[in-house]
């Protein structure tokens, strides 16, 4: 039996949950960022699967845009992390408490 839409959606949901766990649990800014990428990719998988099983290409064009925006986001985010590290010598979220009251 060939895998259907729900198979792909389950994989996508599990990957998304893994990414969420990473964002909530890990304390290293870079690993948090990688978990974000994982969540983006889970959403991409859901979009591609939907596009395949609905039978048009719109979902795949959407994924193309997501990949482009993610590339831009990674570039800006990593530049921010480097700037932050230069100033505070840390990439650890628990050391960044300037805004805490």
């Amino acid at each position, binding site marked *: 039996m060939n895998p259907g839409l729900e198979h792909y959606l389950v994989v996508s949901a599990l990957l998304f949950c*893994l990414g969420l766990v990473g964002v909530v649990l890990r304390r290293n800014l870079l*690993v948090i960022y*990688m978990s974000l990428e994982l969540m983006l990719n889970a959403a991409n998988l859901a979009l*591609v699967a939907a596009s395949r099983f609905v*039978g048009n*290409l719109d979902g795949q064009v959407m994924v193309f845009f997501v990949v482009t925006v993610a590339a*831009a986001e990674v570039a800006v985010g990593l530049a921010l992390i480097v700037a932050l590290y230069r100033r505070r010598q840390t990439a650890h979220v628990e050391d960044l408490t300037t805004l805490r009251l």
Partner: protein
Amino acid sequence: MQAALFYIFAALALVCGFLVVANPFSRNPVTSAMCLVLTLVWLAGLFVLLEAFFLGAVQILIYAGAVMVLFLFVIMLLDLRAEERRRLKRLGLVGGGLVAAALAVLLRGVIHEAAPAAAAPPAVEGTTEALGRLLFTRYLLPFEAVSVLLLVAMVGVVLLSKKELK
């Protein structure tokens, strides 16, 4: 054949995704990054199974290639070895587990509710030609907007990486 490949790719992607988030052997960000590269490669395999050939190639070229090289570059630039030793807090562990479990239950409900059609429609192949045609006709405006976005990101990165951030 296709079903077997699906299960292999999906299982490998999930295992590698787990290793990105919680590697029992190493807390080093480099290991996480390498596992993320593997996850992306398996996801590209899934894309090919879904007949999105162009996106499978783009996934490997842009994500596993460019984006992850950027990640590794920054990890090695920052030299994060000192931070491996910190412990996870128990409250965070419990809270994070609860949040993820709640989301999983929610998503399970959604997937159940959206009962898909029994038979898949004939495949629409996501070839470069088909996607390009769509991209330059119906999605021309978003395409241009994304190009402007990339330019903005480039300028922003150059500004952020200047020596003296004002």
